[in-house]
């Protein structure tokens, strides 16, 4: 059983967990959003600075388990310079990986692959998705000119 557990808590995950990226709060904030996983109590605060509709900088403040924190940290690392549609595609890839489905074409899976081990632990999938849902919601609402203040996964 340690093997399965080790698949979940791979070294890269634990590294992101211990040293999460995107910790620094931003000075210029174009979008703010919060995410919550009501079942777990995981909470995330997100700040985005935009440049030409692309993510210029991002802050991810996550109170949660190793999975949600590291997933948020990977997100912070990956989305800089990406547009809404690119972020959506990555989020789709994360979902596909977590469900063991084929990933969409044209995405550089990169660090995301480490999230694959989570699919053995269905309850934890939501933890991994929290940051992605929060960001996609924020970008989508911003594009439509609407406010968003809270996203949830359950």
């Amino acid at each position, binding site marked *: 059983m340690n093997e399965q557990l080790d698949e979940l808590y791979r070294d890269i995950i634990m590294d992101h967990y211990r040293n999460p990226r995107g910790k620094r709060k931003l000075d210029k904030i174009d979008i703010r959003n919060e995410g919550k996983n*009501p*079942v777990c109590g995981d909470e995330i605060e997100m700040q985005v600075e935009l440049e030409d509709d692309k993510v210029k900088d991002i802050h991810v403040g996550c109170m949660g388990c190793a999975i949600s924190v590291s997933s948020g940290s990977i997100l912070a690392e990956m989305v800089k310079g990406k547009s809404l549609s690119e972020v959506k595609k990555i989020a789709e890839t994360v979902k596909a990986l977590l469900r063991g489905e084929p990933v969409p074409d044209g995405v550089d899976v990169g660090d995301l692959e480490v999230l694959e081990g989570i699919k053995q632990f*269905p*309850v934890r999938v939501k933890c991994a998705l929290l940051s992605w849902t929060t960001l996609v919601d924020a970008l989508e609402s911003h594009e439509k000119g609407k406010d968003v203040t809270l996203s*949830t996964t*359950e």
Partner: protein
Amino acid sequence: MDTITTSKKEHKQLDPMILRDDFPILNRKINGKDLIYLDNAATTQKPWSVIESLRRYYEYQNANVHRGLHTLAEEATSAFENTREKVAQFIGGVKTEEIIYTRGTTEAINLVAYSWGRKNIKEGDRIVLTEMEHHANLVPWIVLAKETGAELRYIPIDVDGMLQMDNLDQIIAPDTKLVSVTHMSNVLGTINPVKELAERAHAQGALMLVDGAQSVPHLQVNVKDIDADFYAFSAHKMLGPTGVGILYGKEEILENMEPFNYGGEMISEVRFDHADWNSLPWKFEAGTPNIADAVAFAPALDYLNDLGMEAVREHEKEITAYALRRLSELKYLRVFGPTDVKHRGGAVSFIDREIHPHDLATFLDSRGIAVRAGHHCAQPLAKRLGVVSTARASFYIYNTMEEVDKLVEALKEARRYFCNE
């Protein structure tokens, strides 16, 4: 399952004699006689697979659902949600968000009356029911109408026990906010034109609730085709365990409703002075649900799916037609409901003009035959029919023509017993 033989018409037929083996209770002796169970409209018997599923759940998987990070809790949750998916498929392929677990039809209708009704029904609004409603689809609206000052209107029945559809525009008038109708009467057997009624309701801006307690067990039901806004039914009347019911509701309507019961599971966040709701369907499922029975409802659905609901319906038409014909031979009986089985299901109510239904039921029981006698939770209908109570035989997949013959014989015997004939 080997209970199905394909007929020439490429149309599945079911053989009650074979599938009886799947129902252990049918081996019981009642007062020394073989049990002839004709009280299926009250509750049906359960196949091995359902009983076994309960045992298996408690022996291998039992845990509380949703919030668990351990294996048992994950397994229990996935089994619990698996039934929800099967139910969503069974009634026409709806979303799982639209399937809410309740205790039964009664609670499902009360949920609508509390969460939707108390918000949307105002003084002067009209709620349209029919004269053949079960108390479950009657009393919640009587109380709501009293509370709000809304008006209740009843679509009348004709002599055959069919809805009188000719004056409908007078009844489903512009002020109507809800039309709530049973899909199949538990007393008369009548199958109502719920699709047409839904259309009329929607034309007036009203919502349509269908009480499917008697229909989902016996017919192929497609709630999307009917275009019902709410649809309610009970697992225990369709081979499943007691304590589980389903409320189907259209997603956008459920989204805009307040919760019914409040507590764990149904919240997303609680502070000392405020609470936010969870998403559908859990918003309506407060507290620990009836997990084991929800899990054991799945094999009941599998069983019916394997038979095919068309075959279930065909068998019921056949046995009901036969029963109606045999009962009509007994001239001292009055048999209620439509005579054409196209328009009815297998609940057959009747009275003997000389023997009180309770005495009749007691007599039949002494012959091993279980029928129900009483008002069948539809007192206003009984009054409308000019009786206080009736006897009712109601059939299901495991009932045979031979059992109908035995019923008829026993009814004749009762005459000899009570009336010295």
